[in-house]
């Protein structure tokens, strides 16, 4: 079943095109990676799909709901963990989680139950009474993703989830994300190729807002006749000198 369908989705800021006629289909339960260099249009694509910015032209459908016309309905189906860690710093770990659950109309008891469940899943239970600002970068990112999952979204957008984390924190987060595979549809942007290889079912490479290729890693290899993702990415995107 198709979870997300992009149809000629475009976005211009002033006269600059940052997303250019993007058309894609993402199936339910897929872990989908949007790959590209800085300014490729990955984050803007996620912002359009999550209702944070309005497309200049084209449309996208999330379970048949248009992002242009049905954003209120879409909001109950999606959640996001933004690029910068988006947590309430002076609230404790459990308060952060319960707060987001309550925004999604969970009762107090259900919000508590969901928070406990997610703290267990994300190994945050020992830190439940710590203020969020006291957590390390890795734990903050875990909390941020847990906050995005507490609403039980069908689709989760992860914008560079491991940016700035050390290797151990990154690997720990990968394990958590691997456990989510097949349970919900995940769209992740990242710069880290090893992250894409470890996590993604399908990959889309974007350059200057345009889709260069999409499919499984094997499909990408077959199409480009190249053996590794780094070579594939470099071959499909313009060199810095040309930008």
């Amino acid at each position, binding site marked *: 079943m198709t979870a997300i369908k992009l149809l000629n989705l475009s976005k211009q800021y002033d006269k600059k095109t940052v997303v250019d006629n993007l058309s894609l289909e993402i199936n339910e339960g897929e872990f989908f990676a949007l790959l590209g260099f800085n300014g490729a249009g990955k984050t803007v694509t996620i912002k359009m799909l999550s209702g944070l910015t309005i497309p200049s032209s084209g449309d996208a459908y999330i379970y048949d709901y248009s992002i242009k016309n049905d954003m209120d309905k879409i909001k109950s189906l999606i959640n996001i963990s*933004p690029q910068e860690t988006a947590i309430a710093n002076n609230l404790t770990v459990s308060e952060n989680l319960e707060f987001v659950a309550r925004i999604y109309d969970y009762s107090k008891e259900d919000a508590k139950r969901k928070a406990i469940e997610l703290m267990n899943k994300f190994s945050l239970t020992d830190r439940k009474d710590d203020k969020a600002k006291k957590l390390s970068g890795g734990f903050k990112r875990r909390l941020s993703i847990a906050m995005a999952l507490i609403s039980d979204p069908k689709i989760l957008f992860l914008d560079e989830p491991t940016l700035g984390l050390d290797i151990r924190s990154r690997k720990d987060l990968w394990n958590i994300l691997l456990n989510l595979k097949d349970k919900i549809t995940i769209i992740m942007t990242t710069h880290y190729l090893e992250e894409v290889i470890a996590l993604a079912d399908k990959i889309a490479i974007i350059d200057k807002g345009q889709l260069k290729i999409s499919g499984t890693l094997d499909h990408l290899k077959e199409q480009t006749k190249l053996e590794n993702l780094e070579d594939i990415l470099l071959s499909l995107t313009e060199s810095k000198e040309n930008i």
Partner: protein
Amino acid sequence: MKAIVYAKRNLKELLNDPLSLIFTIGLPAFLLVFIISLNKSLGLNEAFSPENFVPSIIIFSYSFLTMFSAILVSKDRSSSFLTRMFVTPLKPKDYIIGYMIPQFIIALIQSIILYGLGLIVGLKFSWIILLTIPFLLIISLLFIGMGMLFGSLLKEQQVGPIVSIVVQVVAFLSGMWFNLDLVGGAFEVIGRILPFSHAVDLLKYILANDFTNMLISLLILIGYILVINILAIITFKKKMKS
């Protein structure tokens, strides 16, 4: 309901920040006790008598509401917290109510504590003091609206320095430290144009049973409150869209 959930989060953010408590309650409480006690011993100035200084210090304490609400809103903007919130089913009104309710509660706490301390250091108890509470909440809307406006407009690093100027303006042009009539000139004119002296006067007129002058100050303030809050709401909504 969602607005209340958001308001609870904002209240916790503010109350869990020791700096905000020190400035919104601690500093005004210290100044109130210190200045009135000093005035009692030295007989410095009529502006420092309990009847004059307690209303002034309450209004002064509200200027820190502007500072900390502006910091909260701008921090939420810069930290992507609001990005996360904008994906939730919260509506613009939920954010605005959610940011305002905690400030109301803090304004009420400030007023009760400062009146309480005022009574201890010489303010004569009168039932009219209780009558000023709803008016204080109206006045607090001026400072809360300014906080929303500055928080929506300014970056996190800009809020502190710029809102500090507001705090200074409130201190010097509200008639808190000296009677504006005695100073005269441009200082008095600017003080009378700005809303802060009218906020202090409103309280003084209520405490002095001068209801005619009270009404004039109230009308001027309501005008300012409407303009500033409408501007704050428009600016916040505009930032939401961008």
